[in-house]
Structures are given as structure tokens and as C-alpha cells.
């Protein structure tokens, strides 16, 4: 993995000015994703996972905005580009998949319309060719009888099929990067696995870089190559999925693992992390996790929050866990 990463996020800071002060839903986040790699991003709601994805693709809702940091797409900086320039990158260079396939598709247009529209927008092809590719895209995501279903309206598909259509849409202009924002959350469990498998297959076959945002450790374990754990807008831990899952270094990651039922973990009792994530407007000083951390020491409370590069490069923690430490209840 020495080639240029498809996506490179450097010290990204997103702020939302409110009348109660400025909030930082994304605070100094840095990571890379390479071609053919799936980066899982996990965390609780409000940890900044989706916001990071939105920032990358340039779809932050007002009044949220990027205040500093860099986003490099195949080595080219894209933050600060003109609206139309970044629009042209969306779909073409980076695609996005949303959580709810029921609402992601325009109910009044056939899936074919929506596919060809996207293809025509980004690729220099004619109407017939676009249609051919649309059918191919549907076939690729496993829609049976794609040539007929292309004229169907979204409501004529089941939930899982709709998410396949959404994936086809995100990939139809052959982007290098796909941001999948909770792509399985709204689906039945049996369908979830299919979608995850599909994502994985497409990633491998096409060499696409995937940023898989989810709160589901199971999905991460199943699909991701590397995982980034976010807490209160900051990266808590970043590393290869095997290592992070089996040997969490950040107490938060460890807590998260302990509270997740994973088949690989065997029959242990599930545990909870005490307390809840603080609101962005009321972050504690020092490490944002310290009020909930059983290993917290004075340093955690007093010094500015730890970052990956100031710690061991994997976990943003002054006192990373070692193999022997166990998180107790």
C-alpha cells in the first residue's frame, strides 16, 4: 500500500456556529483509504461519523462548514473547490450510499431514469449506451431480470433490492471512492449480510475505496479492512480491523467491543459503558472520554485531548490498554 491513497483526510475540522457557541462535530480527523480497501468508521450517534463522510463529499448542511484540514482525492485537494467543480467529482470520483433505501430513491422516476441520468451526467456516452450500462449496473448488484426491472419505480422493489439499486446508482459512474453511510441499518438482518457481501465484492472486483460508516461492529468485523473509531468528533482509534477487534487499545473501543454481541467473541456477558457521550456543546476538558473511563488519570482530565499522532499512532489515549488489561464493568 505504497501508492497514493484514494482518499486522504488530514486534520479535518468541521464547525457549526450556533447561538450557544461553536460546535465541532469533526475535530482533527485524519485517515487514508486506499484502492480496494474498506475503511470502517464506527461510533455512537453524534460521534461525527456521518459528518466526516458528508464533509468529504461536500454535502455539509448549512451552517456546518470545514474550517481547516485537507481532503485529498487521489492526491488532489478538493476542499475549497468551486461548487460546480466538486459537483462534477460527486458520482464520478466519489459515490455515496445513504442509510434508508426507502427514501433515497425519487419515487416519481423509474430506476432506469435515475441511473441513466447519472451516467449521462458523468460519462461521455449516448442514451442507448447509458441504458445498456444502467442495465449492466443493475445486473452487477444482483437485480434479477434487470432489463425489465429498469422501467420499474422504486416502490416496486423490496427494501433490500432498493438498497442494491442505490448501490448501483452510487457506482454506475465508476467512482474511485464510495462513502456508505449506514448502508445496512434500515434493512432486515438477513438482507444486511447480502448487502455487506455485495459491497465487499464490488470493492474487490473494482478496486474501489470504500468508507463504510456504521455503528454496527458486526458489519465492521464482516467487511472492513481497517477501522476508525470515533468519539465526540475525534478519532479514538484507527487500525487494521483484526487488531482493533481482538486487541483494542482505546478504552472506548474496548467498551464498545464488550457491549457488542460478536460471534467471534464467544459467550461472554455483554457489558455497558457507563454514562453517555457528552453533547458537543458541553465537552469536558482534557480527553473527551475521561468521565466514562475507568482508567482515567489526572493527565486525562487536565491536558488537552490526546490525538493519534501524540500517542502511539493507533489509539488516541495517554494510557492505551495492553493485552492483559480487561475492561471491567
Amino acid at each position, binding site marked *: 500500500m505504497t501508492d497514493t491513497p484514494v482518499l486522504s483526510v488530514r486534520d479535518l475540522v468541521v464547525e*457549526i456556529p*450556533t*447561538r*450557544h457557541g461553536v*460546535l465541532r462535530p469533526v475535530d482533527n480527523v485524519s485517515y487514508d483509504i486506499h484502492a480496494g480497501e474498506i475503511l470502517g468508521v464506527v461510533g455512537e450517534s453524534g460521534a461525527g461519523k456521518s459528518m466526516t463522510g458528508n464533509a468529504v463529499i461536500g454535502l455539509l448542511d448549512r451552517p456546518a462548514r470545514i474550517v481547516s484540514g485537507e481532503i485529498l482525492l487521489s492526491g488532489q485537494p478538493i476542499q475549497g473547490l468551486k461548487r460546480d467543480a466538486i459537483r462534477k467529482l460527486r458520482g464520478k470520483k466519489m459515490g455515496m450510499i445513504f442509510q434508508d433505501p426507502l427514501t433515497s430513491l425519487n419515487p416519481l422516476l423509474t430506476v432506469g431514469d435515475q441511473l441513466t441520468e447519472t451516467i449521462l451526467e458523468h460519462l461521455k456516452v449516448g442514451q442507448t449506451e447509458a441504458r445498456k450500462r444502467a442495465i449492466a449496473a443493475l445486473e452487477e448488484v444482483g437485480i434479477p431480470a434487470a432489463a425489465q426491472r429498469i422501467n420499474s419505480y422504486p416502490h416496486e422493489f423490496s427494501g433490500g433490492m432498493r438498497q442494491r439499486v442505490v448501490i448501483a446508482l452510487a457506482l454506475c459512474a465508476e467512482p474511485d471512492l464510495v462513502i456508505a453511510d449506514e448502508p445496512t441499518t434500515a434493512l432486515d438482518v438477513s438482507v444486511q449480510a447480502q448487502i455487506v457481501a455485495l459491497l465487499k465484492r464490488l470493492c474487490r472486483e473494482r478496486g474501489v475505496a470504500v468508507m463504510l460508516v456504521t455503528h454496527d461492529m458486526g458489519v465492521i468485523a464482516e467487511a472492513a479492512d481497517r477501522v476508525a473509531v470515533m468519539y465526540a468528533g475525534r478519532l479514538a482509534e484507527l487500525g487494521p480491523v483484526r487488531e482493533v477487534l481482538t486487541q483494542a487499545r482505546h478504552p472506548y473501543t474496548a467498551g464498545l467491543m464488550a457491549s457488542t454481541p460478536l460471534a467471534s467473541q464467544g459467550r461472554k456477558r455483554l457489558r455497558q459503558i457507563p454514562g453517555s457521550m457528552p453533547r458537543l*456543546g*458541553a465537552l469536558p476538558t482534557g480527553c473527551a472520554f475521561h468521565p466514562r473511563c475507568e482508567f482515567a488519570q489526572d493527565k486525562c482530565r487536565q491536558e488537552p485531548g490526546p490525538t493519534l499522532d501524540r500517542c502511539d499512532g493507533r489509539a488516541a489515549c495517554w494510557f492505551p490498554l495492553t493485552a492483559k488489561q480487561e475492561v471491567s464493568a
Partner: protein
Amino acid sequence: MSDTPAPAPQSRLRRAWNSDFAWSFRHAPVAIISSFVVLVLILAAVLAPLIAPHDPFNPATLNLMNGFTPPGQANAFTGDTFLLGTDDQGRDVFSTILYGMRISLFVGFAAVMLAMVIGVTLGLLAGYLGGWVESIIMRVADVQLTFPAILVAMLIFGIAKGITPPEYRDQMAIWVLILAIGLSDWVQFARVVRGATLVEKSKEYVQAARLIGRSPFAIMLRHILPNVLNPVLVIATISLALAIIAEATLSFLGVGAPPTKPSLGTLIRIGQEFMFSGEWWILFFPALALLALALSINLLGDWLRDALNPRLR
């Protein structure tokens, strides 16, 4: 991101002042100005007997010879001076506007409330219950739509005249107007609420409430109603101004407030007769008052709609 960090116990007033609602109000100059105008006008209307220099509703105090006195000038016969002049009956225009606004505001509010209550109720019932209830309600709406407000007004006037004793007929006219405008306005509420109810009905939270066995009445009231209020508000704001104006139109067609106790609309109807003749003030000031009132209500409604809609903030 909705409530403030609460460092110290705050007074109720302080909390209200700091609420999102108040905050967005304080940052919307249009809302501030228009609510100020509405407030001033409502206050002026309510306090009319205290503010108005004359009582235009008391015919004994009128002097016909004061008729057509221009604003601020002395009448050629009586020597009396009036701030905004007098109308064709020698009534002080300023006082008449204040008193007329009372009637207009009352008619407007009451008529819209009536239309809203009828329309929302029937719309909810039609949308939620469906079937023959829906069919009947929507067909009644069709019948209602067929009848122009003027005919409804005439019908109600006719019936009311038959059943009210003569000494109450002056007051009756106002209730008749409320009924007539309210009754001819409910259909749009009903249709919109019905449409919105159909959408909400199929959503999960309603299904869930149904499953846990909440009564349809409670579901409609607690779950669906709050979710369909947005379009209702849009219609209600524009309807309020419209009701005030509709009253003027009915008066133009000859079935409005009695000319001896004129509303703002009746004043305009009377005033427009003097448009070519140079007595501009008889039309201009009441029209200005109506414009200010209706415009402010509408602007306030606009802002309110955006402010109350969390998704639009």
C-alpha cells in the same frame, strides 16, 4: 442543539427569552416589525373606545354637515377639524377605522377558527377513517365549494333575520359574516388535512400506536394532528387576512357589516365610491389600515411557519 446549557436557575421569562423560538424571533427584523404592527393595530382596535376621539357607532353624535372634511382641515360649515378627515356621513375617519378594525379582526379570527375547526376535524376524519365517511365528507365539500360565499352569506342572513329579534340584528350581522366566511372556507382545510392524514396514517409511528391499541381518536389528536398542522398553518395565515378581505368583498356585493357599524371592509367599499371624486382619504386610510393589518399578519404567519418547523431551521 435545542436547549441552552443551564448554568443557573433562570426565571421563566428569562428562559422564554432564551428559547430558540424567541431567539429566531429576535433575529428576524420582518417578524419584529410585523408583529409590532399587528400588536399596535390590535391594541388600537381593542382600546378604540379610549383612543378614538369620536364614537362613530353612535348616530346621535354625528353631524352630517361634517361630511367630506379633508384630513386636518376645518370643515367649511361647522369649523370642526379631523385628523384623517371625515367620510360621507360626517364620521371621523380615524375613529371609524379603529372601531371598524375591531369588527374586522373579530370577524377574521372567529371565521378562521370556525373554518379551521370544521375543516381540520372533517379532514382528519375523512383521511383517517376513509370509506363512506370520507366519501360523504368529501362530497359535502364538493357541494360546499359550489356555493359562492355570497350565496351562503345571503342564506344565513335570510335565516338569521327570520329568527333574531330586531334589536339584535345589528350584532347579528357580524355573527352571520363569521358563519358565512367560516363555512365557505373550511373545505381547503379539510382537503389539505385529509391529504396529509393519508400520508401520516401509513407511517410507522401511527401503525405502532394503532398496534398498542390507542383509540383512533387519540391517534388522530396526539399523533396525526401535530404532523398535519404545518400546511394548516399556511392556509390559516393566508385565510385570516383573506377572511378580513372576504368581509370587504361581501360588503361590496351588498351583504356585509351594516353601514351604521362599518367594518374596515365596509369602509373600503364605501370609500371606493369616492375614488374619482377627490375625497381620497375616505378610501386611502381604511385601505392602508387593511393593507398593514393583512400584510403584517401574513408576514408574521410566514415567519411563524418557518420558525415552528424544526426541519426548516
